[in-house]
């Protein structure tokens, strides 16, 4: 297994002085920083596979920061975004945060605010990546179930007792218990409720979370 890559901070601002100064500030905390003058450059350079975060100026020469954020999402870059602005532009701040920006800092900002923001962003990214890896594992396990085990799982998710499941599948209660044992083992579930949580997080069963009439 390869060692996890060191996180990358992408800084985008059209002002060379600001780029140099903010890069230096972040480097004092030993962040890995690369700076870009416009949206085009960062879109070309960003690597979705490397953990990291983005620090974007709201106004860039070729597009505004919100458009850049959307383009990054479209490109599959899910890293957290911190906006920086020299305009005190409240409506834009609201829109940015609504569209998923992590933070919005007004220039000139406090070093602590920026550094804490970047740290939070990298932590969030790491968590997201870890969560994503775990999910992928669960999905993989779900895919390894036999069709009969899937039937038992779905019946369990519907809250049916073993006796009813056995009758519905036209097998003995003992057989249901054996399938259920395999199922728990394959999914790595410690209890029935853990199994339900894992299964409901998967794409196939997410819709069963939708509120509906309670089974009586």
């Amino acid at each position: 297994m390869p060692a996890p890559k060191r996180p990358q901070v992408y800084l985008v601002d059209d002002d060379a002085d600001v780029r140099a100064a903010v890069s230096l500030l972040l480097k004092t905390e030993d962040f890995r920083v690369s700076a870009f003058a416009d949206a085009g450059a960062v879109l070309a350079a960003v690597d979705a596979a490397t953990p990291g975060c983005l620090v974007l100026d709201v106004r860039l020469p070729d597009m505004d920061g919100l458009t850049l954020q959307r383009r990054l999402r479209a490109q599959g870059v899910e890293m957290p975004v911190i906006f920086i602005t020299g305009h005190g532009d409240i409506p834009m701040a609201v829109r940015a945060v609504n569209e998923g920006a992590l933070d919005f800092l007004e220039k000139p900002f406090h070093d602590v605010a920026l550094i804490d923001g970047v740290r939070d962003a990298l932590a969030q990214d790491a968590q997201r990546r870890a969560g994503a890896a775990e999910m992928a594992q669960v999905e993989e396990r779900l895919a390894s179930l036999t069709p009969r085990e899937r039937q038992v799982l779905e019946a369990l998710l519907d809250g049916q007792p073993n006796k009813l499941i056995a009758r519905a599948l036209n097998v003995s209660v003992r057989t249901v218990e054996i399938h259920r044992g395999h199922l728990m083992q394959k999914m790595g579930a410690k209890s029935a409720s853990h199994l339900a949580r894992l299964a409901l997080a998967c794409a196939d069963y997410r819709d069963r979370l939708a509120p509906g009439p309670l089974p009586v």
Partner: protein
Amino acid sequence: MSSTSTSLIRSSSRPEASASWLRLAGRSAMLIALYYAVGLWGYVFTPDAYGIPLVWPATGVGLAFVYLYGYRLLPALGLAVAFVLWQFTGSMMAPIETVGVTLATLVGVTLGAHGLRRFGFSARFERLRDVWLFLAIGGLAASGIAATAGAWGMAVSMDAVSFRDTWWLCWSADLMGLVLVAPALLSWLGTRFERTIDGGWAMDTALVSSLVTVTVVVYGGHLPMGIAMPLSYAVFPLVMLAALRCPVQITTSLTLAAGAIALSGTGWGLGPFAEVGLHTSLLSLNVQLALLVSTSLLLIALRRERESAEARARQHLDELARAGRLSTLGQLSAGLAHELNQPLCALASYAQASKRLLDRGRMNELREALGQLDAGAHRAAETVRQMRAFAAGQPSVYQPIAPADLLRPVLDLLRPEMRRRHVKVELALDDALPTVTVAPVQIEQVLVNLLRNAMEAVEGRSNARIELSVRRQDVEVQIRVTDNGPGIPRERLPNLFDPFATWKIGGLGLGLSISRSLVEAHGGHLTARNRESGGAEFLFTLPVEARDART
């Protein structure tokens, strides 16, 4: 303490007081001497029949002095009047009448001087109103009362002379003297010698010498009447030219000289007016001189009025340019604030990084960061300087300047705006452009107006482009702003430069109108057209400095 300071003030005021007494004594002496001299001269023109002088400039001298230096000169004037009366009519006029005539003259002059001051007369004859004031108050108050007193004095002294016959003779003589001598005295003693139009001493000298020559020839008695009479009108063009081109003092001196020579000649029986007897001849000459003086005073006043109207117009134009500049700054302030906030952000970040580097003992990096901080602060200061230079603007003096130096502050100012609107301005300057003589504040405003219009026209286009070119074309420099926007709507073209002819929301429509006025005030012209390839073109010209044009 207070007594010391009082005595100090008293002792220090003493020399001033004695100086002012000296000044008064000097002016009084000058008044008496001049009054006596012109009185003496006036008695040259006394026809044998009546003993009434046909020109009497003495009242004019009195009026000018009392108007200029105040009522403290009245005692000296009284002395002068009494002395002149005693000198020339001593045997004929009883002492009581001498006193009466003297008092009446003093009253006339006092009323005249008071009237001139009360109604704000300007000794420079700056407005037509000053001419009317001078003629009305001089004629009614000063000459009117002095003439009434003189006629009364003579009528009482001499049986042969009736008051009704002599009054209007005395009055016209007095008024004639007044209009000849008072303007010269008022202008020389009461106003600064100001050269407003080119021409210089050469023109003054030429005018004075030709006028003196012509008048001496005409009234020297050597020319036949058929030539001398028409030639006597040659003074008119000379005086008119002086009124329009020379300082006011030169003009008033010319009319005084023309009058003095003509009257003296005629008084001695020489010249075209001397043929028909002193009485008739001096009266007809007086009419001619009265016309000459009125013409010159009216022209002086009209020229002054035109000059001050032009000065006001120039000042308004300049104020408009400044107002436009401030309004431009207001509109650009968001961009300018951003322009300053960027370096501030960089400085703050450098400072914070420095603190952290110091805490970690990374001295080499710290030194470099502090160097960057210093350089950044200077760059920020430069931004502020450019902004301030544009906002304050230098006083609107015309100065020779290279076209590139005119463009720089404008482009500096508009750079944030260009960045915000994502517009590029391409510059095309000819090599070796000549300097132009302009008021930079005003031409910069024209450039700002044209460039901002162009930016608004092209904003949002993917290939937005503005070209600013400066070329030399013969004796002018052409400055052209072209854009690739939608162009000027056809129906707007004919009245594009009219004030308030705007089609932009939020625009006042004054920018182009003011720009054209500013360019025309510099002797250039501003035109607009749509290019065949699309987009608008604004072109204005500035004349190349005369000296530069030759090289």
